[in-house]
């Protein structure tokens, strides 16, 4: 970090800022604003009363705030059951993903008879698979239809993460394992007690990757889940957006004369669904870049 900073300073001493710098920063700033605006707009709609929104459909600052849309969302039971399903899928799924990936990556970093065959068999699945219907039939045959496991077990291992993880293990000095072996520890013990703590940053990185993927789960839910009580949050959101009637049925509020604002409710549901990612995002920063670059850039 210090090196790049000093290089930057040296470069800026060599050359003063000019028009081109302004244009570049301007372009990138505009791009960033274009990324942000839809989210900002989403937040605004979710907290604006319908009357205000109709009168002033594009606003930069809300003139009037209301919690009505969020109240409608939170009084909807489907949101809560969906949240509970998604939380379970995310926790169990991430645990399952990371355990499988770490164990396999560690084992594939060593040599023993048959290893080449295993690697070949794994890589083959990157090129070819059964496809949608064979998978659908398999889930049925395994008795996993309409169960949470249908959204967890098929996710297993992401091969790119597996390969990055394996590369990371390769950089840990072998002497550590050897000395532990002399002390009589077996490979599994060595992995969990000695190697994993050293690889913690990488493990955290992939916990985040997997965690976000599981949180975003909806597709397998759409294919395999039939009962409403087992639908993940994202699928509930999809239903709300496709058919706002599903969420407008908050009787207590309508009796109290609080009218629903369909767009506001939809956008409030969007925010509830993306909230965990939004909150964790700034803290994830330092991790997620390392996972992407560790495997790709040859040092």
């Amino acid at each position: 970090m210090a090196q790049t900073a000093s290089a930057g300073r040296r470069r800026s001493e060599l050359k003063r800022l000019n028009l081109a710098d302004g244009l570049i920063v301007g372009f990138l700033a505009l791009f960033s604003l274009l990324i942000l605006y839809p989210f900002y707009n989403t937040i605004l709609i979710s907290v604006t009363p319908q009357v205000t929104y109709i009168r002033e459909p594009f606003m930069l600052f809300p003139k009037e705030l209301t919690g009505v849309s969020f109240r409608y969302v939170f009084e909807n039971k489907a949101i809560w059951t969906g949240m509970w399903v998604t939380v379970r899928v995310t926790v169990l799924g991430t645990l399952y993903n990371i355990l499988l990936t770490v164990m396999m990556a560690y084992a594939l970093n060593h040599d023993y008879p048959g290893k080449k065959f295993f690697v070949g068999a794994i890589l083959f699945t990157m090129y070819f698979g059964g496809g949608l219907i064979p998978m659908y039939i398999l889930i049925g045959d395994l008795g996993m239809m309409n169960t949470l496991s249908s959204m967890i077990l098929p996710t297993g291992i992401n091969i790119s993460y597996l390969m990055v993880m394996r590369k990371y293990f390769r950089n840990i000095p072998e002497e550590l394992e050897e000395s532990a072996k002399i002390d009589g520890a077996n490979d599994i013990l060595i992995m969990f007690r000695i190697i994993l703590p050293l690889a913690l940053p990488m493990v955290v990185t992939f916990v985040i990757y997997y965690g976000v993927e599981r949180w975003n789960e909806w597709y397998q839910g759409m294919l395999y889940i039939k009962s409403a009580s087992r639908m993940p949050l994202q699928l509930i959101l999809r239903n709300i957006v496709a058919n706002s009637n599903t969420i407008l049925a908050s009787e207590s509020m309508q009796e109290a004369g609080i009218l629903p604002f369909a767009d506001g409710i939809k956008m409030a549901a969007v925010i509830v669904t993306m909230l965990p990612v939004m909150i964790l995002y700034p803290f994830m920063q330092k991790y997620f870049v390392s996972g992407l670059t560790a495997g790709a850039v040859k040092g």
Partner: protein
Amino acid sequence: MTVKAQPSPARKGVRLRRLLREIWRNRFMYLLLVPGLLYFAVFCYGPMYGIQLAWKEFAANAGVVGSRWVGWANFAFLFKEAEFWNAIRNTLTIAGMQIALAFPFPILLAILFNEVWQPGLKRVMQIVSTFPHFLSWVILSSIIFNLFGNAGTVNNMVVAFGGQKLNFLMSKEIFRWLLLFSLIWKESGWNTILYMATISSIDQSLYEAATIDGANRFQRIVHITWPGMQSIVTATFILRVGMIMNAGYMQVLTLYNPSVYEVGDILDTYIYRITFQKAPKYGISTAVGMFKGVVNAALMLSAEAVSRRLSGEGLL
């Protein structure tokens, strides 16, 4: 010891014993492998037995194995379907648009980011631009519907400036562009990271020397930054072209509607539709999947071969 002659039985025995000893010595490694291998066996190889459906007429009561063989009838049926060819045409068109525009954009972004000298500003802009990558297409499509819907923010602006309302989501002319720009919006920032990391590994003294020699910004980009990232751009390009049969399944599935099937229905969504929305004909759906899988695998392997020839290294 490089004896090529047939090993004597005694030697064979020694070798076998050595192999068994080697396996026993690594028994815990195999144990570590078991869960992962089980996963690949069940969920990656397991479905492959269902591929036979491509040559069968699926009957639910008979199961996969018991269903009747029909030879190439499913494929013959498919090749006469206009919707199938439409899906292929859309897949290639949309993927082609992505390769032409969504692929180079992050490269441009990375080069521009590298020209920003204020580290704080650069960081903030990068953090902002990678954010949409972490959200699902369900969330993003909800936001897009709200923005571009008939009564959405964009149309309200159009009207406010005296224009005519546009039906962005149902227009055959616009839909593919909506796909393209929403993809650029979601993934460009994320795809920039790889290129940024490559650029940051370029020797900084090259820039200083060039500046002292009087090279301007454009010359520095052309002669230092671009050559430094060329090999990784080649690799990602080959990989993207190899995956041309994929035009964004989740994105299309969440964004499209019947009025844009003609321009938006790609192979993956076609398979999904004929399986779950029309009267299900598993044999035909599997045949489409099979067709896509084989073409895809052939393209990926060619991409791998091209990459090996160009750089001496595989992609994966």
